């Protein structure tokens, strides 16, 4: 067997602070040769960023965190097993920040970042990216916009250089804007007729109205119509700023190299709109959903797709880990109570699961399943019974222990490749979980008891307005005893 590189060992505990100079000379994975002089010459003036090191035991590595002078947060994660680097740029510019009535602004802006910058037009960007053999993509979720680059480490500087232009000087050329908008509209028109997206979008709208998560990140075909190029420029000016952003560099690089790349390509990123930054208040998340059963008629379908739920909690909620365990016991695994009763015993569904959608803002606690339309009522009745029982008595200590073991044992699967770890770090950053998350998580899970899980479950389920959305053939559903109203066109 060929010799293998030695494993990187995380030697330090969390939160060790030291100066960049000490840090740079002490890095564990020094390269075989120093970065090229050309690279060094391009560096901006050195600043004495303090660097903190946080271990990620599951991956046998550490996160080296610092903040550049312009406010950009930088995480470097050395993983020298393969000659690859994954980088992620997170910008607090998700669809939760979309201007009122212009849902999809963040997503449309992101999709156009790679279609024109100050120095490159779209065809040039396409050529450069494809020429690296790697990928460079941008997209917007609910809480942040992501620019992702994955390539051989030799190509990383090329992609970083482009990514830097994309976030600091996108131009949204008119032709590209029109083309992208047409294509996005077509995709949305299509998606909106699919039971999954159709049901999801309606469910979130009914639960959250005009709140941050009330509309899909992609917007709707209706909201997209009203977005102009100017809207995109305004959005970027207000939100794309280094002090609202994170850069993660993970893979075959040392902390020193990572910091050097960050400075070289993002050190000059400024926030020209600092004084003029929009001070519009964040969207109100307070919205009182109207409970009820809403039916979307799709006569051509044989299956019904069902969403049932109520507003839940944010990731920062102190009851999160208890709610997580409650959710897992109830319906989030293939050994959950709902799965055991409705799939394993009754054989009525191919899948049924619960979800705890908790991010920067509260999402729903929901049940989702698909079943043969005539069985819909039967499944809903069985589901109600399981939920009522779950809210009445604590889960057994054995079940709670099993779920806690599953969560702790399964933690490495959240990050078992470098690109997954890089993406996870964006979530950790966005949800303000802190970089001790990787060591705290098992402790947090271990504190959950059957009683604390029940309390969290009751908090989620009791005295709450529940919305049911069913997409399926109305006639069959009504014959099966389902009564539902047509969804409101808008609010």
């Amino acid at each position, binding site marked *: 067997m060929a010799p293998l590189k030695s494993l990187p060992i995380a030697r330090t505990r969390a939160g060790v602070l030291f100066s960049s100079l000490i840090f740079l000379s002490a890095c564990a994975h020094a390269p075989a040769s120093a970065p090229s002089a050309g690279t060094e010459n391009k560096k901006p003036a050195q600043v004495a960023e303090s660097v903190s090191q946080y271990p990620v035991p599951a991956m046998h590595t550490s996160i080296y965190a610092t903040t550049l002078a312009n406010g950009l947060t930088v995480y470097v994660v050395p993983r020298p097993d*393969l000659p690859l680097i994954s980088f992620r740029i997170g910008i607090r510019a998700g669809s939760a920040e979309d201007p009122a009535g212009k849902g999809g602004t963040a997503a449309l802006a992101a999709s156009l970042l790679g279609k024109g910058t100050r120095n490159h037009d779209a065809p040039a960007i396409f050529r450069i990216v494809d*020429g690296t053999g790697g990928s460079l993509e941008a997209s917007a979720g609910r809480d942040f916009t992501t620019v992702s680059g994955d390539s051989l480490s030799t190509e990383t500087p090329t992609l970083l250089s482009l990514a830097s232009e994309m976030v600091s000087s996108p131009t949204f050329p008119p032709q590209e804007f029109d083309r992208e908008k047409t294509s996005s509209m077509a995709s949305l028109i299509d998606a909106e007729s699919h*039971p999954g997206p159709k049901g999801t979008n309606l469910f979130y709208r009914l639960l959250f109205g005009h709140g941050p998560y009330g509309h899909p990140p992609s917007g709707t075909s209706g909201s997209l119509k009203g977005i102009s190029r100017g809207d995109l420029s305004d959005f970027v000016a207000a939100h794309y700023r280094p002090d609202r952003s994170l850069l993660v560099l993970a893979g075959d690089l040392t902390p020193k190299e990572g910091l050097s790349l960050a400075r070289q390509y993002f050190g000059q990123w400024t926030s020209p709109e600092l004084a003029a930054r929009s001070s519009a208040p964040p969207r109100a998340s307070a919205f009182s959903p109207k409970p009820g059963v809403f039916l979307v008629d799709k006569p051509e379908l044989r299956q019904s797709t069902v969403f049932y739920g109520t507003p839940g909690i944010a990731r920062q909620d102190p009851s999160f880990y208890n709610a997580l365990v409650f959710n897992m016991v109830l319906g989030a695994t293939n050994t959950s109570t709902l799965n055991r009763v409705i799939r394993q015993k009754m054989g009525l569904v191919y899948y049924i699961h619960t979800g705890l959608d908790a991010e920067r803002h509260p999402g729903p606690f929901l049940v989702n399943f698909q079943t043969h339309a005539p069985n819909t009522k039967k499944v809903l009745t069985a589901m109600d019974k399981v939920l009522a029982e779950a809210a009445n008595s604590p889960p057994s200590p054995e079940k709670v222990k099993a779920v806690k073991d599953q969560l702790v044992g399964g933690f490495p699967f959240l990050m078992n490749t470098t690109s997954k770890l890089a993406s996870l770090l964006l979530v950790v950053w966005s949800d303000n979980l802190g970089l001790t998350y990787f060591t705290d998580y098992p402790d947090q899970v271990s504190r959950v008891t059957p009683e604390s899980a029940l309390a969290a479950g009751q908090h989620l389920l009791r005295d709450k307005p529940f919305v049911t959305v069913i997409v399926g053939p109305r006639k069959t559903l009504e014959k099966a005893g389902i009564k539902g109203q047509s969804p409101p066109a808008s609010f």
Partner: protein
Amino acid sequence: MTHRFPRQVLLGSLLVFWLALPITLISPQNASADTANPSGSSLKLSLLPQVHHFKNGLTLVTVNDPYSPTLTFQIWYRVGSRNEHRGRTGISHFNEHMMFTGTKKFPHGKLDTLINGVGGHLNAFTDYDFTAYFENVAPDKIDLPLAIESDRMTHLLLSPDQVERERNIVLEERRNDYDDPTQKLVEKVYSTAYAVHPYHNPVIGWEKDIQHTTRKDILNYYRAHYMPNNATIVVVGPVDDRTLVKKVRTYFGGIPRGHLAKSRIPAEPAQHHLRMTVVRKPAMLPITMMAFHAPNFRSRDAMALVVLAQVLSGGRTSLLYQDMIYHHPVAVDAEGSYDPLTHDPGLFYFYAQGLPKTSPPLLRKRLDAVIRKVRQTRVPADLLESAKKQILTQFVMNQESAFGMGMLLGMMSADRVPMTYLTDYVRKIQSVTADDLLRVARKYLRSSNETVGYLFPTGPVRHPSFSRPGRIVR
């Protein structure tokens, strides 16, 4: 939750990890920018698979990846829908479901409890050529999958009530496909392109066959195919090879070699005329699919076809993106795809989902124009080089995933792909020329070898999520 593993993902996971293979990848724009990899643009990869053959015919393939925090244990049986007979299609997949319904040692539900209890994942998937089961666990939990898989290789209970309950669940899956117009189109294109070979049938089977398959059918099928000499175990992660060999011998060594009847699978005769199929279902956007019979990995043309597919749809400089999405927008998506890793010859297919107000014939016209282009002119050198670089970069990237590596090794074993396919892979991809692309395009992308499928939307319905009809999982 359904997990799909599109073949295309696996195509990209043709890893080059088992030899110290020098790969030279030159980036014209970036020749001096290699601060992140001071060794320059040359890669040397050095993870080695070990292959062991046991007396009872069982094969073990291990890859020691010390960087992986998790381990994948997979067992691959060389049986899939290509081994099925008329009237009993879908039995491989039905049997796969039954593999989770209990043995005396591990009653129904126990497997999920045990694997969840250590934070692992287990599942299975069925394809044309194979059925595979996997457990992804922490490295120190390796005994658990060994105990589970050695037990259910021979001790499945197949209780009648479990068969009936599982039949309903399989029919639920089947109805999901029925409701999806794109799946329907793909299914029809395959069943039209293959007249006699079992790739004609969807892996999940025809609904009527699922309804009529009996417990006895499944029991006979299970006994005929589940045996050590029809299986390969693949383990990837931080594992010690010698220790693992001992463990596998302990758990599986007592299972005797079985009698494996020789399958007689009809070869698909050459196609001589264009074939057409049409689906009319409620949908919002039209789709055109065009499929050409193509050889598998055994052909000397396979690597050229891999590169041709990348030239057609790898990235935004690809021919299809440039033509149909960027310069003359008629489609929201347009791709060409080819998978050399099939047991029997497969399909090189194109598909395009049109913008509103386009039609399947219009999409076909545009696809035909691109196909004509690759049949008539040499692909520009920079596009060819870029495509090859993308393919090789993807190989390296996919090494990161222990599960992905396991999938590749298992699939190779199931399709009896020789190791030389991989040891020669980089060299062969790099040696593909523009003339090769021209030659294979002319040889295979011709109308007498083609099946065209149209999806005409008849009203509002659902989003087509395109995937080949192959793999389905529990």
